[in-house]
């Protein structure tokens, strides 16, 4: 399960994010925004997500976005890492996080582990995760784990259920 993403589906939800970023912008470093894009290129993302990341970036916050590979998100083809990594990363950001200055990290494995690992390695002051707004026992495993284990504040970005 890797559905962790930055998704904001309403301006009412986006505004607090912007306010937080603006208010804390000068003190925040590198929140991790996880993006989930499937093999076919579709993403549980929206224009609002791009705007949110753009606002963060525009407020002086350095953003590291994270894409975790699993069986549904790993690229089908990876000819040569020495060439494809940079090309794929550049295009991935252009499509999914086009705001200037956003860096992309990719990892493989269990998403919550990778989110916390990257947040630690990057010295992140905040983590932003998408959330489907459902807390049934079989849902939101990644959100629950990160919420339980994170040493830094976590922003949940609601996305359409």
């Amino acid at each position, binding site marked *: 399960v890797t559905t962790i993403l930055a998704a904001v589906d309403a301006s009412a939800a986006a505004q607090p994010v912007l306010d937080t970023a603006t208010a804390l912008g000068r003190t925040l470093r590198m929140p991790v925004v996880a993006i989930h894009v499937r093999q076919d290129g579709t993403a549980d993302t929206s224009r609002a997500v791009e705007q949110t990341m753009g606002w963060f970036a525009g407020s002086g916050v350095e953003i590291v976005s994270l894409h975790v*590979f699993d069986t549904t998100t*790993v690229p089908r083809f990876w000819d040569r890492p020495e060439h494809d990594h940079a090309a794929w990363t550049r295009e991935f950001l252009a499509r999914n996080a086009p705001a200037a200055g956003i860096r992309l*990290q990719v990892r493989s494995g269990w998403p919550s582990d990778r989110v916390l690992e990257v947040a630690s390695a990057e010295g992140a002051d905040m983590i932003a995760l998408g959330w489907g707004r459902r807390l049934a026992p079989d849902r939101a495993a990644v959100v629950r784990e990160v919420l339980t284990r994170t040493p830094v504040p976590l922003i949940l970005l609601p996305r359409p259920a």
Partner: protein
Amino acid sequence: MDPADRGDRPDRNWTVTVDADPRLERVAEALCTLADGRFGTRGSREEDGAGSAPLTLAAGVYHDPGGGTTLLPGPVWTGLDTAPPLGHDRRELDLHGGVLRRTWRTAGGTTLHTLRFASLARPGVVGLRAEGSPGALGAGPALLPPGGGIDVEQGRQRDIAWVRTRSAGGGGITAAACQHTTDGGRVVERLAVYLADPGQAPPPEAATERLREVERVGFDRLLAEHRAAWAARWADAEVTIQGDPDTELAVRFALFHLLASAAEEGEAAVGARGLTGPVYAGHVFWDADVFVLPVLAAVDPAAARAMLEYRIRRLGPARELAAAQGRSGARFAWESAADGTEVTPLWATDRQGNRVRIRTGELEDHIVADVAWAACRYVDWTGEGAVLDGPGRALLLEGARYWASRVRRDQAGRAHVDGVIGPDEYHVEVGDNAFTNVMARWHLRRAAELAERAGGATAEEVAAWRGLADALVDGYDPATGRYRQFAGFDDLEPLLIGELARPPVAADLLLGRDRVRAAQVVKQADVLMLHLLVPEETAAGSLAPNLAFYGPRTAHGSSLSPAVHAALLARAGDPDRALELFRVACRLDLDDLTGTTAGGLHVATMGGVWQALTTGFCGLRPTDEALELDPCLPAAWDSVEVRLRYHGRRLHLRAGHDHLELATDGPVAVRLSGLAARTVVPPGTTWRRVGTAWEGESK
């Protein structure tokens, strides 16, 4: 009728339509690239829009900006001062005419049309015509400098603008352009000329002088010439698949870009993405030799000869590379650019963000035999044996000397090749890789034959090559009919990729480098590649058992892999499964299955598509003495028609499930399963299938 066209509407079976999607803008640009073998221009929008990356590249003109050798961006000729689209925005690539059209509607309700071409008749000449309304359409500068901190000069000579980009090494690309606005501002017509030289940036005067010549010819005549040139090119290359129009269009799309990827004279450095984008930096790999050159040898022999010339002219650096490794002969660089030296990057980032060493440049020795194989395949298709007797001879002989110095003999006299990477790059520094060893064996034997016929090696060398070839271990087990991929492969963790993910899948990203290295998971056809390239060097009947074993272990993480497997599945008598993988290969760029098409098209995969169609489904195989034919079509296809050239003859093959027809412009020796070699006399010969064999009659 499209006002900008002023010609017939294209056939839908020859037109790739791309509707705008802001997220996929750069993919559309790559798909709609127009090239003439020397210059390539991406199909970028005319207005300066977000996400757009207009780019013109020149074959073989590289620069080194400090981060490694890459193709030099040239001046941009496609910009217009126009209103952006709101809603409808469509590009149509006419494959038969080599023309890109675009139609879009502006916020003001105006519909704009553009048409552009990169002249196949006059390489380096490009044209753009736009029609709209005075308020929505303005010409803007005829040429723009590229971005990215490139060294640029620009100026004017009366009504002609010129721009020149220079590489750090002194080479450059120079363009000159003129344009006219007519019909009260409704029509903009632009012509431009490109010149390029890898050693010295061409003077602007030369470009402006050539532009004045083509200006006198006129836009419409240039366009007509260009269309005629493409029609002539297709007359030797057309493919028709009755019963599967989508696949037919995809194959034509692949051929269109292959035919545009190499010039027909001089030398042709065909990079991994051709002239369609900046990714892979224009570096030349084995992809060019093994996947692209054979196609052009059959449909555009002059372009294939130019590709061969690229290797011939880089024998010097290949000798130096072998010497630097303490070897004899010549060892081509795994990735090469202008001067033929090794330009493979040394580092990459893995799936955990770690920096990892890349050793393909150091260890992927099979490039030596790949180049030799391509040279021989060129001769197999064209019949021009004089190439190998003359300028191409050293490609084989110097390569054989390399293998002779690379091979290790054990105490029992068996010969081994240690420490290599095969096509399956998941496994690094392995010994006795079957692909490498068998290709080396084939190479040594062909070099020995050539030296006996054409000289260039001593009798002692020839005898040694034959002895080495016979002594090379190949990992074949007669009991199973299977080749062991490399020494120790059978001891690795058994792993069927389908149990983890549905292939194609980049297994190294999913599982990690260490895991795939320790497992029987294969990136792409490795042992199986032998059955495609040198089936005469494989054990009779070994295709089926090796397909059965390696097929489920292959992740197809290389974009080259699906087409190869499709070809071999067809040869193994399973054309319906072959079609599934064939369609993956056909759609690789059209559906951006890699996520990297934005950076350029996978021209080697396109070459694989054509080879899967011809070698796989049609059973076409050129040899010195005859063209072998053995069609095996999937149920979804009614028939396949292929046009190509063999030994100087033009062939039109039409294959159905139980019917085969061959039209030629002269006698051609062919061999069908169940028939001895025979001569076909025009206007044609037909055969009908009887059981597993064919019975024929001449018209």
